[in-house]
Structure formats: C-alpha cells, structure tokens
C-alpha cells in the first residue's frame, strides 16, 4: 500500500521537507522555485493581470483530468480571458490526512504538465495538512500573474451591438461528465471533462484582430450565466440561435433525462469570444485551426437593448429568455 500523508507531513519538520523535495520540487522544478527562498522573485513590466481561485472538486480524479490539472487551467484561463499571457502561478495545498502519496504525486505531476502546456511556471507554494474530515481529500488554491501586451483591452463591459459571439467548442462536457461520475447513476456515456488551458486559443484570436471586445471562460453556471453577466455589464441583449449551439448528443441526452440544460452546465476548457461582426468569420477560422477549437461556432449576436438579457431563438422558431442560474441546477422531479 502506498505511503499515506499524515499530520506530521504538515508539521514543518523533516517529513514536510521530504514531501516538498520528493514531490513539489521534483515536478514543479524551475529556476525561480529552485532558489528555495521565502518568496518568488521575478521581473515584470507593463500591465499585469492578477487572479486567484480555489478548487474543491469531488471526485478529485475524473475522466479528462484531476483537481491538479483543473487548478492550473482555472487560473490560467482567468488570466487568458483578460488578454494576458499567463506567466507565474502560486499553489496552496490543503490536504486531508489519509491522502496517499501516490495520489498527491499524480495530482502534482499533472499540474506540472498542464503548466508546461500553458507556458506558465509554478514559482511558489504552500502545504498544510488537516485532520480527517476537516477537508475533502485535497483543496488547492492557485494564484496567477500574467502580462498583458500593449494595446489589448478586453472586458465583460465591452460587448457592442453588431458583435458576434463565438464559443470555442461543445458546451457542458465538464459539468455533465462530473455529474455522471459523482452520482453513480449507472449511465455510461463516452464523455470526459474538457479541462484545458485556453492561453493558446486566446493568442489565436489576437493573431486575427486586436479588437477583441470580450473573452470569458464559461465555467460554473455555464454559457447562459456567463452571457447574462456580459449582457448586464455591457447593457446589451445577446441573442443566441439554438441550431448553432454546439452540444454533444450525449450531453443533450443526459440533460434531457435529468431536467437540466447544457447551457447551464460547467465548462473548463471553452472560451466565449465576442468580436465585431466583420472580423468574426476570420476569428472563427483561426480558432478552428487549433486542436482545442475545432468545433467552434458562432452561436449568437449582440443587439441593442433597454433591458439587458440573453434571448434564445429556438429550433422551432420561437424566442425565449435564457436566465441566470439560480443556486445549483437541481434534477427535476418527473
């Protein structure tokens, strides 16, 4: 049986050092981290994007990734959504005693790999071990810094009438896949989390135009909730076309069965891109040229509005409101 993490690993003594050397330094290894000082030191200039996020997912290992990969993607994607080039990450671990060393190593290894893919370095970190029941296996916080190239201005308040809305691929994969694994419903579907860093896709967008009005990764609450935030920040209507929404048959089927909607299911590797109508086709092509953007589609457009909301033109031709998510999406009763 694999060695297990105990409270002693968090005591600051020899076991703590062993843990740091054998796992964290081993996988994260880079010149800034290797200096082994109390804080990471690096040069910076120009505009900086700075963000933090905590990750508490059950199960910690899931199809398409694990909590470690997710913790790197989440923060990298928040930086990329500001047009920044992600550079440095910190990571804080809160580990419940009893997690095996092998599990931790697998998590840390995938963080290192994802960081490499996304072009970021993990330059500082912290580990605490808590007693049984004080947390759920492992919680990870990551904080990130990215540099914004000159001239890039993007934000949720910049959507303008005439803009088009692009989604970089199928929606709801992450939320639906996790739901299936968590609830053990006996539904077997060929689905996995879409968890992926978006920094390269963002650069694809900027390779076409500097005029990128909004970039957002529609995580919790899904595409519907994120677009509602943008509509209200920008004071516009966003009109979606149901026939253009990229949804896998599996995701649609499972959502239909449970009374949920793919529009509200979480994504961890998708980007919403809002750009002026005249460049939208070129941006779409650029996104589709990347492996994570092959299924991208123009899903809607930005319209003028007195009362900001998201509307959906349905398959059948009617129009309805797509509201924000209230609380958690709960399975319906019949």
């Amino acid at each position, binding site marked *: 049986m694999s060695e297990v993490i105990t409270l002693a690993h968090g005591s600051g003594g020899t076991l703590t050092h062993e843990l740091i050397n054998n796992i964290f330094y081993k996988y994260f290894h880079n010149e800034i981290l290797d200096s082994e000082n109390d804080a990471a030191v690096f040069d910076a200039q120009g505009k900086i994007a700075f963000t933090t996020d905590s990750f508490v997912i059950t199960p910690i290992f899931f199809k398409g990734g694990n909590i470690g990969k997710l913790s790197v993607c989440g923060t990298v994607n928040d930086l990329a959504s500001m047009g920044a080039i992600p550079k440095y990450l910190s990571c804080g671990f809160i580990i419940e005693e009893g997690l095996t060393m092998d599990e931790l190593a697998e998590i840390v290894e995938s963080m290192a790999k994802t960081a490499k893919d996304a072009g970021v370095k993990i330059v500082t970190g912290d580990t605490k071990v808590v007693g049984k029941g004080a947390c759920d296996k492992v919680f990870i916080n990551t904080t990130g810094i990215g540099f914004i190239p000159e001239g890039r201005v993007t934000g949720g308040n910049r959507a303008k009438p005439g803009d088009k809305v692009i989604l970089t691929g199928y929606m709801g994969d992450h939320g639906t896949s996790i739901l299936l694994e968590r609830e053990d419903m006996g539904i077997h579907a060929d689905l996995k989390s879409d968890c992926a860093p978006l920094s390269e896709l963002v650069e694809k967008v900027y390779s076409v135009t500097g005029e990128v009005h909004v970039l957002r990764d529609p995580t919790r609450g899904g595409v519907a909730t994120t677009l509602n935030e943008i509509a209200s920040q920008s004071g516009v209507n966003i009109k979606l076309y149901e026939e253009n929404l990229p949804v896998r*048959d599996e995701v649609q089927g499972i959502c239909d069965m449970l009374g949920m909607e793919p529009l509200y299911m979480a994504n961890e590797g998708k980007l919403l891109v809002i750009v002026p109508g005249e460049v939208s086709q070129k941006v779409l092509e650029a996104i589709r040229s990347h492996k994570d953007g092959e299924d991208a589609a123009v899903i809607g457009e930005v319209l003028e509005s007195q009362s900001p909301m998201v509307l959906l033109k*349905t398959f059948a031709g009617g129009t309805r*409101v797509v509201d924000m998510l209230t609380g958690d999406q709960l399975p319906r009763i*019949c």
Partner: protein
Amino acid sequence: MADILKDFKSPEISSILTKEFSKYQDRTFKIMELCGTHTMSIFKSGVRDLLPKNVKLISGPGCPVCVTPNYYMDNAVKLSMMKDVIVTTFGDLMRVPGDGKSLLEAKTEGADARVVYSPIDSLKIATENPDKKVVFLSVGFETTTPVVALAVKKAKEQGINNFYILAGNKTMPAAVEALSMDKEITIDGFLYPGHVSSVAGTEYARVNSKKYGIPGVIAGFEPVDLLYAILELVKLIVEGKGEVKNLYKRVVREEGNPAAFSTMLEVFEPCDTVWRGLGNIPMSGLELRKPYEAYDAWKVFNLEQNIDEKITGCICGDILKGIKEPPDCPLFAKKCTPNRPVGACMVSSEGTCAAHYKYGRYKINV
C-alpha cells in the same frame, strides 16, 4: 442528434403548423396543460411565442412540487432536523419553503437532507447507514409513484427496516375531474399529461372529456408534438365534441402501463389530500396500504396532516386554476423570485411561476 428527434424540432414543420392557426382566429381558446413538463417544454422550445394571441395556454396543477401543501414541507423539515434521520428527496423539493424554512436552509443548521435521483437510491443509503432512519420524500403523480412502490416492496422483501416514505403522492384523474367541475374555471380544452397517461392510460381522459364536454389531446413534448397537439385541440373545440385524441402514441398506449399501475395500487390506496392552492380534493391522494404501514413516516413519526390548510399571501390557487396568470400576482418577480421563492410554483423547474420568470419575461419587459 438522431434524425427522428430533429424532425420533432423542425422549424419547417413548426412554421406550417403555426400558419394553420390563422384559420381559427374568430374566437379565444383557453387550453389548460396538466403536466409540468409540458409547461416547461412549451416555454423552453419557444412554442408559447409561436402561438397566436387568441390561443391562451393555462398551466394547471401538473407540477407535483407546486401542489405539495405547506404542511408537507414543514413536516419534511421537522424530520430532517431529527438527529437520527436522513431525509432523501428529488432535487426540486430542496428549495421549497413551506411555512417556515426550506430543506436547503435546514441543511445549513445541520439537517441531513440529500438529493437522490431515484427512490431506490434511498434504499442504498438506508443499508449503508443502519443506525439512521432514512425517510424518502415521496411526491409525484402516476409517473413517479410506481417506482416508489417498488422501493417499498424491495425494502419489505429485503428486510430493510430503517427506510420510510413520507407519502404526498397524488393522482391526476381525480384532480382533472375536480377542475372540470369547478364553476369558476372556464377551460375550452385539456392538454392531457403525456407522462401520467403513459402509466395511467387514456381511459380517464376519455371519460372525463365526455362527461364534462371538454375535449382534450394527449401530447408529446417536442415543439412539433406540442404545436400539432394544440392545433388538433383547437379543431376539436370548434367541432364542440367532448373527444380525446391520443397524439403521443409512440409512448402512450391506450391501456397505459398496467404493470406499473398495478404495482402502485398494490402498495398504495387512495386517500384525501391537499393540493396547494386548490385545497382538499377527496380521494386524490395516495397512502401506504396496511401491509406496508411500517414504512409510513406519517404513522411511524406521528406527524400531522393539516387537511384544512389555506394559502395566504400568494395567488397560487388562482394561477393553478387558470383564473389568473403569474404576472397578475403582486409578489411575482418582486418579493417572489427563484432565489427567494414565496411559493413552490416559483421553485420547481416545472412550476408555472418559475417557467414564466425564466422564459417568459421578455414578453413582459419588451
């Protein structure tokens, strides 16, 4: 998407059907849906937006959560707060407030209330927690009740004696008849529930429509299903015959699902029950039969049913009867929203008020 499903969403067929309605413009048609999933599908697919103004859809008491009386929720919360009890429920009930707090609020105070996807899951929880009493909140119509009956039978067969149900189950035929008799209500036609009919069959609908001279259709849930069913119903209303057409034959057989139905009646028997907003409808509820009373949470935990319950504040009753619409309620979208619901109709994903709030507001705003 499978091709056949695509056809049921087809914009071309929808548009042909929508145009047909222009032949029936000289009068108003008041049509009541009796299935919560119809209510949701009609809004979600934009069908409401495609219908002409003279065809009025009224959402009847088809959502099991919405018609669950306050005393039921209060008892559920009371149970969940007991130290040795785990309450299990379908998701929709978690946010329903009752007269006091909701299960979601009780949970923050330490109550053990868990969402399950099937009553059978509750049996598993009971086996895994032998020192706890597991109570499943059993609400629903003919669609869900057979599965609950199966869970109770399984518990008995396997000797699981820490599993109970708080029965709040209801039967649709009794309610349809009560609505048909109600002098306050002026309904021209019924959109009979597709799911309930798949279990209960079509006989109850035919008898009811004939007896009260109100025609009906049994419909599916895709946009084309719905538009076609509503169009056919409009024709039946014009012809003035109390007939019922089954337009959901790919799922609903005339005899329903006799196996499911008889399992239900083996475990449950009819009783009086309160429909929130409508009051007590005699013999429209279901309670466990004597051989299964050891699983009856009402009896085991000595809980009381307030059969005279009256709702104050919101106008749920008038909304369920189709006398008023959600925007007519002074609380709608103001004091009562999905985040802070006053009544169950705003909570459930199938609730009339929630559906209006979620999908219909652009008509109200624009």
